[in-house]
């Protein structure tokens, strides 16, 4: 299972046929294992790894640190769930350290993301403060290197 998850994590578009060959099991077994992983919630979805700047030059992504006062009954969960509902939000994590929630927001321009923070996140009851960090350049995304950070420097042909 570990190898299968590793391969899918790197490239979810490998066919069951290819996975079967690499893992030395049958295609049917691959299908069953993937079904099991989906069923038990290990695999919760599949997505492409996008070079955002290539896709849309103006697109911006921000990491927003939220300080939050946890609520009596449900701790951080309610606030996190509320934030997660917004389609602009890519990810929400509860963090250790100097702040509580880390929220990733994607927008078509800087202003849109800034307004999202001030209009949607800051006013939520229990949100004490927000700090917004914009991504300036990407070097590696989900294990994939961007060309600016990685090149195959080997010569094309060698004995």
């Amino acid at each position: 299972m570990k190898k299968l998850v590793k391969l899918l994590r790197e490239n979810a578009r490998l066919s069951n046929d290819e996975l079967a060959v690499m893992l030395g099991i049958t295609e049917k077994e691959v299908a069953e294992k993937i079904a099991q992983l989906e069923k038990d919630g290990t695999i919760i979805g599949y997505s492409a790894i996008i070079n955002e700047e290539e896709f849309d030059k103006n697109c911006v992504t921000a990491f927003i640190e939220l300080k939050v006062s946890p609520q009596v009954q449900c701790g951080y969960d309610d606030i996190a769930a509320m934030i997660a509902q917004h389609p602009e939000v890519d990810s929400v994590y509860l963090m250790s350290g100097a702040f509580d929630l880390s929220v990733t927001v994607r927008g078509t321009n800087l202003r849109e993301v800034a307004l999202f923070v001030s209009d949607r996140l800051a006013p939520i009851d229990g949100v004490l403060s927000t700090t917004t960090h914009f991504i300036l350049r990407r070097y590696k995304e989900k294990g994939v290197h961007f060309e600016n950070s990685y090149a195959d420097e080997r010569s094309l042909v060698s004995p």
Partner: protein
Amino acid sequence: MNYDNILSDRVQGIKFSGIRKFFDIAATMDNIISLSVGEPDFKTPFAIRRTAIHTLEKGKTTYTSNAGLDTLREAINDYLTERIHCSYDPKHEILVTVGGSEAIDAAIRALVNFGDEVLVPEPSFVCYAPMVQLTGGVAVPIETKVEDKFKLTAKQLLEKITPKTKALILPFPNNPTGAVMRREDLEEIAAVLRDKDIIVISDEIYSELTYGGVPHVSIAEIDGMKERTIVINGFSKAFAMTGWRLGFAAGPEPILTQMLKIHQYAIMCSPTVSQFAAVTALRECRADVDNMVSEYDMRRKLIVKGFNEMGLECFEPEGAFYVFPCIKSTGMTSQQFCEELIYKKHVAVVPGDAFGESGEGYIRVSYAYSINHINTALKRIKEFLDEIRN
């Protein structure tokens, strides 16, 4: 100045490797997808690089003793004891060299007199025959065959042995075929050699990269063979350390003493920083090697299947990181196939005949590349085949 008269006949008598010609073609083109590289795509494990950095920070940049750092030779002995169950005296039976290549060269030079014959199973790495020729010896090729899984057989060996035979090169796991000699295969070879004064130069540079759960066996560990075997290995392939230029030879003291003499005059000592880093490789990086092997194994299975599905029959290699598919069904020579493929589809693979005449009809394809890279290249090769078949 007539340089032809000035230059040594021996050196003029050897040719540049056939791989070089191909490199020159590839270098003139853009957007090449290469499957031609004979080195790992992994970076050297971080622990090894860190040791090198520390070594430099501490200013340890002097020569080492000719034979190599004591700590490294001890680590090499421990490694060989564990992996091939042969122990050597680190002081007199182990020599640290500039890559496996230098160890091969020194071994050949230490053994070969003018006219001596050295048996070279082919297809194999490109250096053996030229090195033998430079010493005034005669390289005698032995063609390994696909029906024998490209292994050297006792029968083939016996046929080529003459009173002049001085040494046998044993290049397994093999570049370019990926063939591996298992214990039973080596027993047969040992049975032929045990009562003869022939030295085996066992080039085991790919020893860590074997698949199918059966670990590498060295001919040195077969009964009676240690005293007639020079084990050659190095750090390039197993630890992804090609650019560090570090290898070693281990074998009987009388031979190693002579090899040390050659090394002492030609090289002085192997790179000091690399030697310190290599101690870390042997002592701390087993898990890194295992991870790399597991990656190679998955790619190996994928690429073998890819070629077989395209109708290019592909022997299943059990070692190294190459496959050696047969292209005879296309009616082309290896050179034609590779040139057309690079011009039409910008995919670079190496013609099999670069590794000896018996490689004609085959191509060497490296899988030291990411799975995506391999899949893209396979797709293009398939398109190429579809076009030439229609």
